[in-house]
Structure formats: C-alpha cells, structure tokens
C-alpha cells in the first residue's frame, strides 16, 4: 500500500498528550499515542529520527510550534506522502485559525474533526486546498445560512472539489483586478574563516496574491536562460541571464506545458499562494562579506573582531541585520564596541548579538569585543568554535538577479489588471536561509 499516508493522525502537545486524534483504519487505536509519549517524548528521544517503529506500527512525526503531528501506519506506507500531508495539515489549520498551536486546536476541535474527515479517507489524502475546503467546511452558523440555499452551493462545491481546476472556485468578482508578485530569496552561505565560499546557494520562491475576477489564464516570463532560449534568441538588452538549477511549481501550473515549451502558464487560486520555488547555485551575489578574527588568549580571555561589508548597491539598504558571534559557555563578561547598531552578550544562546537596524549598501561596519571567561578545570575539551550566523533582509534586491519579464493575464471579461512586483533577499532562522561563517 505504497500510497497510503496514515491509519490515524494525532495532534499532541509537547508532553505527548493527545489534543485531538482521528483514526481511519481499524488497526489504529488511541493507545498508540501512549507509546509515542512514553517511548519518544518522555524518553527525550525525538532527535534520533522522525520515522520510528513502535509496538508493531510505523510512526512518522513532525513538530510545529508546540504541537507534534503524528501519523501511524501498519503497512509499508508512503513516508514522503505522510510527511508532506502532515506539513499541509498544519498549513491548512493555520489558514483556518491564523495560527497552529495547542490552544487554537483545542478551541476549534469540532471544525478540526470535520476537516480531518475530509482531508483523509481511509488513510488516503483527498483535498487539502484551503480555498476549496472553506467552500463547504465552515463554522456552524454559516452552515445553517447556506442550508437555505443548499442545493446550488453544495453542488458547486463538489464539482469544484473534484474538477480540473480544483484550486479555484467559479464566480469570483473583484471591483479592481490586482496581482501582487513577490520574489523572496533566501541565501544560504557556508564560508570558511579565511573567506573562501564553501557552499552558497539561493532558494527562492514566487509568492503571488491574486485578486482577479473570473477564470483568468496567466503566463509568467522570467529572465532565466532556459525560458529565454526556448523563446528563440537571447535577451537583446544584454542583461544577465539566470540559470535555475531546479524549479518546482504549484499544483495549478501546467507541468506538461512547461516541459515542452518552458512556459509557466496557470489558472491561479484566489488569494495568496506559492506559485513557484527555485534553486540557484551559480553566480549568486552574496549581499554581505564577513571577516571574523577570533583570538583565544589563554583560558580566560577571547578577543573577537568581526568586520561586515555590504556588497549590494549603495542606494539600497538591509534591514533587521542580526549578527550572532558565538562565545564559550563559561563566558563571564563581554565588553563590546560597535561602529553602528547595538550589541550585547546573550548568555542563553552563548553568543554576542549585534543588531543593526538599517545597513546601507557598500558599507563596512565592525564590532570588537573582549570576552572574559570563568576559568574552569572541568572543561577539558577545547571550545568548538561554532560558526557566526547572520540574519538580514535586503528589500529590492535578488541575490540571484532574477527578474520578472512579464506577467500576462487573459480573461473572458477582458479587464485590465494592476500588477505589482516586489523582491527581497533574506537569511535567518525564520526565513530558511542560513548564512554561516565558520570561525575555526
């Protein structure tokens, strides 16, 4: 049963207690969650592997905020499917309740039961598109309101649920037709202490927000090499062509068409969605260079000098720059001087945190710190020197150089569409990008 996702799904709190669960096959029981609680959560064994065998069942689990999502199966189920399903369940509930945590689950359990009945049937994932589910799974008061005009609404719902354009409902009307397109890039960097780039790549996504009437057909053009070549000829303006390592698309994009003529065409869902994801490794413009000099003087003193240079155009600026310079556990005190921004020693994370609210382009800033350590005799092992970590956002800048060349909208109604395109490059734990500079 390689396409089965789950015999049961459990949402558990961090102590491993059930918040809500639903079984789909007779072999799964409530008590399986106890096995998870005692043998994984209480045994503090959540880091070994997200796929485990317990009590003759296979357990797959993820953690999202203060909730574990757990699925169990008895057979050789599709693990990739199970995990993707769980991730989408968290996204679905987030879209319903605006957040996904223990409290919001408890407060909406009736609705969640309804959703769980709809998203999986006998363990097979069915519909997880929030846009469609919201058509017919709502709060009770809305239900009774629809009941009056039951027939047309429900019939329409079921047709759309299973239809070819399963992600968009009919009859959407906007007074003003608008499309917002955001290019959001997360840069990953791994740099050695000497400044050699060990690894860098950029994962980007195109987030689209559509407020369009009817059933619009959209076509998107980017300045990437393959698309342009297939359109016969290179860019005449002589601008940079981008080589995408890989692209993945939202369900709405016609993949066969992309495969044959590299054309990104689609009927968008209503509202916000992730149209496309891409990955680039060649020719990435790294927005910051970091030069750390860390000297250990004996066992009680460390001298840190960190220089950061922004390499993006002078007209732009980065916001929310946070530099985390790790220091040993036994740090007693740190005296820090910075040329801009604020810095302090954060004992909880064992690092010096330097924050710069606004970092202009083509600028070099520096921090120097004297760190005093409590001398211990027990600490035999040398300090591991974890890497320096950067967090930032650079609006109006793509590290890959990707641009939107055109976005065409066709619709029977022939209306005019207002289009907005923005971009941002970022890194940091919250954004997925990991900007790391090693110190050893």
């Amino acid at each position: 049963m390689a396409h089965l996702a789950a015999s049961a799904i459990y949402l558990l709190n961090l102590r491993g207690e059930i918040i809500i669960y639903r079984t789909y096959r007779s072999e799964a029981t409530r008590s399986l969650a106890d096995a998870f609680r005692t043998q994984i959560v209480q045994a503090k064994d959540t880091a070994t592997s997200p796929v485990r065998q317990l009590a003759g069942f296979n357990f797959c689990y993820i953690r999202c905020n203060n909730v574990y999502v757990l699925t169990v199966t008895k057979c050789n189920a599709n693990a990739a499917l199970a995990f993707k399903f769980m991730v989408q369940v968290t996204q679905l509930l987030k879209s319903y309740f605006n957040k996904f945590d223990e409290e919001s689950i408890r407060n909406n359990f009736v609705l969640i039961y309804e959703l769980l009945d709809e998203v999986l049937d006998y363990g097979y994932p069915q519909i997880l598109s929030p846009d469609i589910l919201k058509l017919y799974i709502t709060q009770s008061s809305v239900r009774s309101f629809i009941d009056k005009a039951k027939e047309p609404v429900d019939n329409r719902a079921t047709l759309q649920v299973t239809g070819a354009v399963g992600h968009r409902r009919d009859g959407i009307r906007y007074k003003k037709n608008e499309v917002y397109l955001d290019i959001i890039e997360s840069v990953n960097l791994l740099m050695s202490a000497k400044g050699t780039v060990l690894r860098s790549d950029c994962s980007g996504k195109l987030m689209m927000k559509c407020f369009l009437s009817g059933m619009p057909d959209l076509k998107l053009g980017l300045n990437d090499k393959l698309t342009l070549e297939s359109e016969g000829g290179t860019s005449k303006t002589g601008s940079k062509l981008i080589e995408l390592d890989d692209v993945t698309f939202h369900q709405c994009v016609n993949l066969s068409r992309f495969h044959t003529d590299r054309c990104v065409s689609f009927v968008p869902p209503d509202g916000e969605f992730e149209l496309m994801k891409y990955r680039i490794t060649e020719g990435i413009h790294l927005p910051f260079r970091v030069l750390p000099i860390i000297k250990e003087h004996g066992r009680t003193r460390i001298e840190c000098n960190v220089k950061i240079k922004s390499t993006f155009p002078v007209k732009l600026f980065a916001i929310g720059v946070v530099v985390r310079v790790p220091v040993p556990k036994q740090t007693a005190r740190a005296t820090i001087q910075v040329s801009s921004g604020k810095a302090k020693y954060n004992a909880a994370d064992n690092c010096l945190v330097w924050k710069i609210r606004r970092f202009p382009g083509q600028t070099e800033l520096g921090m120097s710190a004297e760190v005093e350590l409590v001398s211990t005799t027990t600490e035999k092992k040398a300090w591991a020197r974890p890497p320096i970590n950067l967090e930032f956002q650079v609006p109006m800048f793509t590290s890959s150089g990707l641009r939107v060349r055109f976005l065409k909208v066709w619709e029977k109604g022939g209306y005019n569409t207002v289009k907005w395109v923005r971009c941002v490059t970022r890194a940091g734990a919250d954004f997925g990008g990991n900007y790391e500079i090693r110190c050893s």
Partner: protein
Amino acid sequence: MSAMPVGKRLARKFGGMGGDNGRYFSTTKKGEIHEMKEELNSLDKGKKKDAVKKVIAAMTVGKDVSSLFPDVVNCMQTENLELKKLVYLYLINYAKSQPDLAIMAVNTFVKDSQDPNPLIRALAVRTMGCIRVDKITEYLCDPLQKCLKDEDPYVRKTAAVCVAKLFDISPEIVEDRGFLDMLRDLIADSNPMVVANAVAALSEIQENTSKNVFQIGAHTLYKLLAALNECTEWGQVFILDALAKYNAKDARDAESIVERVAPRLQHANCAVVLSGVKVILKQMDVMNNPEMNKALCKKMGPPLVTLLSAEPEIQYVALRNINLIIQKRPTILANDIKVFFCKYNDPIYVKMEKLEIMIRLASERNIDQVLLEFKEYATEVDVDFVRKAVRAIGRCAIALERSAEACINVLLELIQTKVNYVVQEAICVIKDIFRRYPNQYETIIATLCENLDTLDEPEAKAAMIWIIGEYAERIDNADELLETFLETFLEESTMVQLQLLTATVKLFLKRPTEGPQQKIQTVLNQATQEIDNPDLRDRAYVYWRLLSTDPEAAKDVVLAEKPTIADDSHLLDSNMLEELLANIGTLASVYHKPPEAFVSRTRIAVTRAADLEGAEEEEEEEVESSADVPSSSAAAAPVAQVTDLMGNLMDDPLPAPVDPFAPA
C-alpha cells in the same frame, strides 16, 4: 469564553461564533455522563448540539462515553450537517462496542445516502464503510452500488475508496456484488480525482488478494497517464505508485512512460517527485539506452537536491532515498557533493544521513574539500556525530587508495586534539586502515602509542591492542605496552580480553624471549582458570594446545597473512537494492529494509521496548573488524554449542598445565 483574536477573526469571516470550543473540555465533575444524557435528550436544538460537542470532547480526552450510544444516535436525524458529522464520528468510534445498538443508525445512513445533497450522500457512504459491524455492512451494499454510479464525482470518488474499506471487512461481498468491475470502470471515469481514488483502492485490494484484480494493460496505462496531468497532487502519487508496478513491454513503451512522467519532477510536492523518480528509474532499466539514461540522470539530480530545502523530516526521507538511488545510479549526484555539506543547525538525523551520502560521493577529485568538512564536523558538539565524522574519514581512506595518506594525516591531526572520544574513534578506524593497506602506514604507530592512557572504551582498546600485537616486531616496547593492559586483564570486557590473549600470543611468537613467555603463561592461566567466559577459555585452550604441540604450526596459524579488507559493509546487495528502489518514498526506503521485514500480517498487541529499537541499530555495522585467527564468530554461536565444546574439553582433559613450551 476563551475567545482569542483568532476567534474574532473567524467570527468576522464566517459571520458567526468560532474558536471557543475549549469550553467543552472544561467539565470534569461527577455525574457528567448523566448530565450529558439529559442534555442529549433535550428538545432545545442548541442544547442538544452542545451536548454532542461535549460528548465528542470527552471522547477526545479518552473518557468512555459509550454508554450514551442510544442518546447520541437519536440526534443523528438532523438537518444540521455539523451535528450530523459529529454523530457519525461518534458512531465510528463506538459502533464496534455496541453492535446491537448500531443497527439503529442504519436507517438514517440509508436515507442519507439518497439525500439530494451530494456532500451528505458521500458522507453517509464514507462513514458506513468505517463502521465494521456486520449488520451495517449488509446495508452498505445497495447504497454503495448506487454511489459508485452517482452523477456527482465527489460521491463517486468517495464510493471508490469505500470499496477498499468493504474489501477489508468482507472480500466475498465485494466479489459477489461485482464491486471490483465497477471499480475498474471508474478508471475510465471522466473525473481525474475519481480515477485516482479508484487506482488507490484497486492497488490496495490487489496487495491483499492472490487473484488478479488490478493489472495495468495498455489501455489502462493510457488512461492513467492522461489523468496524471489533471488530478490533485495526492492523486498523482496514487497513480505514479501504481505505474511503478507496471512492466513495460519494450524500450519504446518505457520511453513513452518516462516522457509523460518526467514533468512530475518539477512538482512542489516531494511525494510526487519521489514517486516520479521511482517510475523513471524502473523504466530506465528497460530502456537500456545509455544516451537517454544519461540525460534522465541529469534531469533527476536537481529535483532531488531541491528536496533538501524542505522541512527537515522531508529532508530525512529524501536523504535515505538518495542513499539508495546513488547506489544504483552514482552519476545522478556525482557533482553535487557540496549540497550535502552539513549546516550547523541541521537536526542530528539529517546530519548523520548527509555524512553517509558524502562518503558515497567522495572521490579523488573532491576528497580535499570533503576532508576539510569532516575535520570541521569532528570538532562539533554532538558526540555521536563527531564519531561518525571520524569514521567517515577512515571509510574514505579505505575506499580511495590514492587519498588514503591525506585521510590518515587528518586522522593524526585529530588525534593531536587529545579529545578523548575523537582519539579513540580514530584509533579504531586506523586499525581498519592497516588491514586495508598492510605495510604502508605503520610509521604512525608511534603517534598512536602516545595516547594509550586516554583509551577507556573497549572497542578502542581492542583496536590498539590488535595493532600492538600485529606490529610487535616494529614496536620496541611492545612488551611494556601490553604489560600495562595485562595488569587489568581480569577486569576488561570480553572484547578486550580476546584481543589481549591473541596479541600476547603474537608477541610471544614474534619474540620468543623470557618476558613474553611469562606473559603468555599468565594470560593462558587466567583465561582458562579465572574467567568464566567460555569463548575466551576456548580460545585460550586452542592457543595452548597449538603452542604446546607445534609452535611452528602456531606461527602459521596465528601470524598468517590476512586478506585485505574493503569497505562494502554499507552497500546493499543488488537484489535488495532493486527491491528497495521499487519502494522509493515508502517506509521500506527509509528503513532500508524490505517491506516483509517490518510489516506483519498478524496483529501484535504489545511489543517489548527492546524489540522496538531494532530498526535503527542494525545499520551501525562497521568495517569488518580485526577478525583474527581464532575467529570470534564463536561468540555469536548459540550458547548450547559452546558449552558442548567445553564439555568435550573437560572430558578429555589437557595435559596438566605444566610449561606448555617445554619441548614435547
């Protein structure tokens, strides 16, 4: 009310109350069941609904509310869909414990399955299939038959899955009533989602029957490929997984499948991508066209790499699969080793798998870079990860002959850090390196000997002792070194004792002088008389007899040239690999075990905790370690056998333990 901003937001959005269900959990007082019973029978609709919610809340937290069965079922006949769904949910949970009362629900089910509202028709059929009570099942057949031909695709897609449910309860009914034929008809349905669910149901039924239920022929194949482009991402997975079972007639057939499946690699859903890879890999074998296969490998690489930017759990599944895929087609990611470099904040399970893949992709071309990484990892905090990094260096040394020296130099650098567990791990792998490249790198023994006193783990001690014994003639003070270990001979673990025994014999054979002779005497005495371990005693007796009867023969045996080793312990045998590749994306591919190994047909009620951990441990087998002459395989032999052997020895006692080295 514990209403939060969310509640307010929803209230605005849905024009009603919402997000305050928390209060249903709050009642914990005595007589609660009784109170709920009263409320369930209330005439006030609102109160009734609230009561059902309370019952469901109680059920959720694990209270037994089965005694309310008749009262809840009474609420089933309602126009309110939300209430109906809650009652159905209750039925799914408790019908089995109240089979006689469950019959009360049948009428409503049958009525609902004819409701003008397709959502209600589907709901009735979906729920009935989940209630495993014979009496209900009987009544399920007629509605199911109708629903399979319903005009609404939503109902048909639900009915399709219901056939699989029914088959699990009663295969006979499914066959007798012709549901299988109806299900097969649905593969030609105009609606892609119906097709996908029919495929899922048929595939599942096929797995549980010996009959030929679902065989993909040319016609079906065409239907499935056509539906692939249209249906939901989940449906695509069902179809791709079914296609992965299809055996192409010839190269052209295979080609046309690959052509249709390849665009799936660009899908945002990881399960679609992995199932797509599974189909393509299978057809590549049939196509057997080097040019085309090369192009396909090139195409599959980037999507696989992209999976590494997903959630860590998905990364883990992807990495376990990539491990298999590159064993079969190493070119797919040959140039992408960098993407497997560990990030400092990767979860440990991701790091471990990345390391495993880095070892596989390491080559003479990239080894310098890889070694720098491994060295970096060896200074990290997590001890298990550090150890694995050190092992990785050793495995690269063994696999890549021309880079062995570079690897050894890194290991020596790591030994200089004097970090206890790094040193010990390094010594273990260096022993393996010596076995792989005899007589090449022994100059480093001196460095190793400087670290004797830091060794406190049996494996590292045993490795070091093996090295001392094996190279006794080149270590001037081998005698003294062994002496330090021998002082604690009786307290050591069996592993170390066995190595000490063998090493002492080796030392004696290489240097038959007085010191070693005394030592061997003591060791043999202790091993045969003071230690209860039969394996050790046995080995000691074997040596003793050898030495006392024919020292030359002893030399031939103990100092025999050992075959060089290779690191193949991490490679799967080709049959197993093929089987796992046919299961890409599934649990089998994550465990690296065939499905039979962990799927049991019979139900196991409770399994002991010890049995549960098996899954993760079995992969830890390392390079064949110092299997010295009297093979330690005896240790693995059943205990009964060993004691038998001991019995024989006792019946036929050795010559009294006089000096075994006196000329015979």
